[in-house]
Every structure is written in C-alpha cells, then in structure tokens.
C-alpha cells in the first residue's frame, strides 16, 4: 500500500536535497579555490582577487611544473614507492590473512598469531625508537625505508581474513578432495573469489603510500629522495620557496603562490583519476572492516 505524498512533503524533499547539495559543493569549494589560483595571473592572486574562477587565466604555473625536474623526480619516487609498497602490502596481506582464516583444527596456532598481529597493530611505539630501529638497519635514504616498516598492513589483513572466512566452506572442501595443497587452494580458489576485497585493500594501501609524507621527511636525508608529498610539504608548509630573486624572468610570470597551488593540484590529480574506483571499493572496505556484525 502506497501512501500518496503531500505537496509540502515533496517540497521538503527538494529542500533537503538542495541543502545537502550545497553542503557537498561547499566541501569542494577550497579545492576550486586552489585550482583557480593555480590558473590565475600572479598579480590577481597577490591582490587577493581570485575566488572560484581564474582571474587573468594563464597556464604559466603548469608550464613551469612540466619542466621542473625536482617535482618530477619526487613524483617518480612516489610512483616507485606506491608500486613497490603496494605490491609488498598486497603479497603480505594475502599470505598472512589466508593461514589466519583457517580453522583452529587446521592451524592450531592461529589465534595466538592473530593476537600477536593485533597487538602489533595497536602497539604504537614512539617515534624515537622507531627512528633508531630503522636507522640501525641502515635503511636511511633508501626506498626500502618507506615500504618495509609498514609492509604488513595488519588492518588489511584483518579485513581480508574476515572476508576469507565468510566464503562458503564447500569451496575448499571440493578443492581438497581434488588434492590441492594450501598454496594451490589460495592461488586457485581463494584469490579469484576475493577480487573485490583484494581491490579494496590494495586501494587502501596505494592511497596510503601516495599520501604519506612524514617518513619521507625523517628517513630521507637527501632531498632528492623525497616522495612527492614530502617535497610539497617542504615547499608549501615549511615555506622553502621554489623561486628566489635570482630567477627574475620566472618571477615576472609566476609567484610561489600560484606555483604552489598548481603543485598541490597536480598532486591531487592521481587521486582524482582513480576516484571512481576509490569510492566504490573504499565504501565496501569500510563496511567489511568496520561493521562486522
């Protein structure tokens, strides 16, 4: 039975929709502002005239970035780290989650190990011991320092383990009867059936690697080894200007403000590119991990 809806009721529907749309747009306004600044003339920016639309449209900043060797080197370090770190995270998550998803009878040490991992996850030793440890392994200034310390993504392991456990038992019984060993079981049965969950945890770790800056700042001595977020942090937050008085011709065209805005935006781009994927799988991941009834 459907109750017919009154006119005011529908008006309220619209009102709420418009209100929330306004909230949504407001959420994005700061990003529009940054984009507009990056595309504006430097005089308009220093005069504070730029709102959400470029004033004195110019691509000077992007033109400069395209030729900025340091920016692209940092971009490259980030890509390397995302690639290597993502692969490590993926492999280790799968390898760790699978045995932990087995029954107690099949793998009696499972619960003990699970507690060890969970303890490892919630144990957050201070930064000084953390730094001393990593440097004692001689990892300073090496890409490995950015990927090894967080190589076991324990939260992802938990999500994946819960997912493996939710799969129907019949799956592996059939495989067992065919004489498959655990490696084959994982490779031939579990991985193919878990693709959405795997996509989710992979995206988690890729975004995590792309976005982290602090380890780069502390563990890389040579600024040439900074990943992109660290590089941007140094420019924009620590106010190390990319341009100085010696570059008079450049300064006539662009300012650190427009240039920084453009760099921020270029650093956002990869996230925007995979955003449709992110939205789809992150939502799933959150639900897999957070609300498990």
């Amino acid at each position, binding site marked *: 039975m459907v109750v017919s809806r009154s006119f005011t009721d529908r008006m309220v529907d619209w009102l709420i929709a418009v209100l929330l749309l306004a909230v949504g747009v407001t959420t994005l306004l700061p990003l529009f502002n940054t984009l507009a*600044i990056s595309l504006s003339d430097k005089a308009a920016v220093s005069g504070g005239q730029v709102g959400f639309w470029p004033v004195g449209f110019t691509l000077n900043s992007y033109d400069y970035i395209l030729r900025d060797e340091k920016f692209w080197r940092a971009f490259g370090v980030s890509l390397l780290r995302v690639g290597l770190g993502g692969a490590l995270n993926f492999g280790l998550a799968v390898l760790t989650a699978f045995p932990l998803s087995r029954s107690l009878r099949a793998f009696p040490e499972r619960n003990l190990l699970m507690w060890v991992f969970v303890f490892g996850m919630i144990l957050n030793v201070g930064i000084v011991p953390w730094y001393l440890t990593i440097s004692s392994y001689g990892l300073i200034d090496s890409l490995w320092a950015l990927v090894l310390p967080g190589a076991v993504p324990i939260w992802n392991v938990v999500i994946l383990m819960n997912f493996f456990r939710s799969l129907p038992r019949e799956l592996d019984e059939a495989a067992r009867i065919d004489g498959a060993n655990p490696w084959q079981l994982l490779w031939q049965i579990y991985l193919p059936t878990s693709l959405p969950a795997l996509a989710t945890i992979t995206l988690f770790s890729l975004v995590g690697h792309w976005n982290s800056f602090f380890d780069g700042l502390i563990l890389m001595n040579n600024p040439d080894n900074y990943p992109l977020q660290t590089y941007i942090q140094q420019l924009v937050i620590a106010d190390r200007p990319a341009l100085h008085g010696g570059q008079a011709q450049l300064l006539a065209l662009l300012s650190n403000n427009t240039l920084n805005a453009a760099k921020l935006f270029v650093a956002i781009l990869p996230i925007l590119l995979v955003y449709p994927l992110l939205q789809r799988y992150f939502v799933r991941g959150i639900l897999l991990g957070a609300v498990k009834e």
Partner: protein
Amino acid sequence: MFKGTDRFAYWLMVLPGLLLLLAFTFVPLAYSAIAFQKFNPALGLQGSPWVGLDNLLYMFGLRDARQVLANTVFIAAMKMILVLFTAVSFALLLNEVRFLGVRRAIQTMVYLPHFLSWVILAGILRTILARDGLVNDLLGYFGVAPIYFLGQPAVFPWVIILSDVWKEFGFEAIVYLAALTGIDPTLYEVAELDGATRLQKMRYVSLPAIAPVIVLVGCLSIGNVLNAGFDQIFNLYSPIVYSSGDILDTYVYRIGLIQGQYSLGTAVGLFKTVVALGLIGISYWAASRYANYRIF
C-alpha cells in the same frame, strides 16, 4: 584431512609478515628502553647510562607535558564528537533524499577530502585561511573583521577540529548510511499509517536503527583520545599556537628527534603507548560488550 604439511605451509605463509612485524614493531619496543637511560646516541643502547625512572618523573613535572596532554585530549575528543554528530546528521538527512542521482552526486562530493593527504589539505587551508584568503573574504561580506585563524591560540584548536570534520564527516557517514539502507521499508510505511511526521520517522525509525552503530563507533573512538592527528597539526601549527595546539605526537617529535632529548622524547612516547594500549583495551571491551563487536 588436516595434514602436518598443511600446517607447515601455513607457517611458511605467515613467516615473512611475522618477521617484518618483529623487526619493525617489536624491536622498536626494545629500543624504548632508552626512556630509562640518559641516552647518548654516540654511546648507543649498550653504552648509555641507566637512570631508572628519572625521565618519567621529570616528564610528569614538566609544565609542557601537562599542557600538551590536555590539548591532545581536548582536540581528539572534540573531533570525535563533532565528526560523529555531523556524520549522523548528514546520514539521516541524506536518507531522506529520494532522488538517487542527487544522492550519489552528494556522496561523491563529500567523500573526496578523505582521500587527500593532510599535506595537500593543509596547503589549501593555509591559502584559504590567510588574511586575504577565501574565508576571510567571505566573512568580510558579512562585516566580520579578518580572523587570524592559524595564529590565534584561542581559534587554532577549532580550525583543527572543524577542518577534520570537513575532511572526515562524509566518509564516516558511510557506516550510518549502510545501516539506514538496511531498514525494512515497511517500518516507515507503518509509521506513516500511524500519522508520523517526517521528523518523527527520523526520530523513531531511523535513529534507533543506527544507534548500535553510533555506540560502536563511540566505543572504538575511546582508543583514539591520545591521537589528535599528527599530520594535520604538524602541517598547520607554529610556535604562537603551541599553547593550545601542540599535541603529544608533535611534542615528542620536536623534543625527541629535533632537539635531541632522545630519552625524554622516548619517555613521553612510552607514556603515550602504555596509556593508549589501556584505552584501546577498554574500547575493544566496550565495543564487544555494548555493540557485540569482534575484531576477528
């Protein structure tokens, strides 16, 4: 059916992860021993003299440490409360939007900041919160004098709290939205037959449906009251707002690594570790007690 070779295979699979965990989580735990030393890096862990609890006692007497602890708890708690409140309100309202396309569009917009790093967002915030930035321009239209957002100790914590709400409310709403879509539509229909208004339906149908989720999120948050957001604050603060904006993590970073007071920094860090462990224990206990939650 369960062969010993299988067990061996499982161990083999777990081993790499276990070793890395050992190397990067439990070895640092051993290094925490420098909290009980007068650590001199050139002498190392073996060579540095032991001082017992001196560093911890010194820490408890430090004015800075007390202030930093208070700032941490305040900022973290306000963040949790406001993010939760905003996310719940948002989810309840979004649940009322019947146009699916509009709903998707709104979600797409509000989730985005969650995926951007604090480096990027802090860069953006520094621009829009400047004196001649977007926010002060807008306030100017309403006749409000420019506010020194990042340089006023009374204002700074709220900049931190509200910008965190901006970044996270949409994303946190996901769990509530999921709970709301799980509601049996006939419940609403019955309520309507009883003459319930829209607000009453929200109050008596929607809200109870997500209440368990709110309890769960609330419980799990307990474990985080000492995490006020290092990345965010590190990229936005400066000495003038230390009095209200310095948190445990930034403080430990500055004294421990930058000023070279390794032992003191480690002591403060260790204090945080121990308290946080206790809090997380409580939060998991509460979550399992009140929300029937198990991590695995």
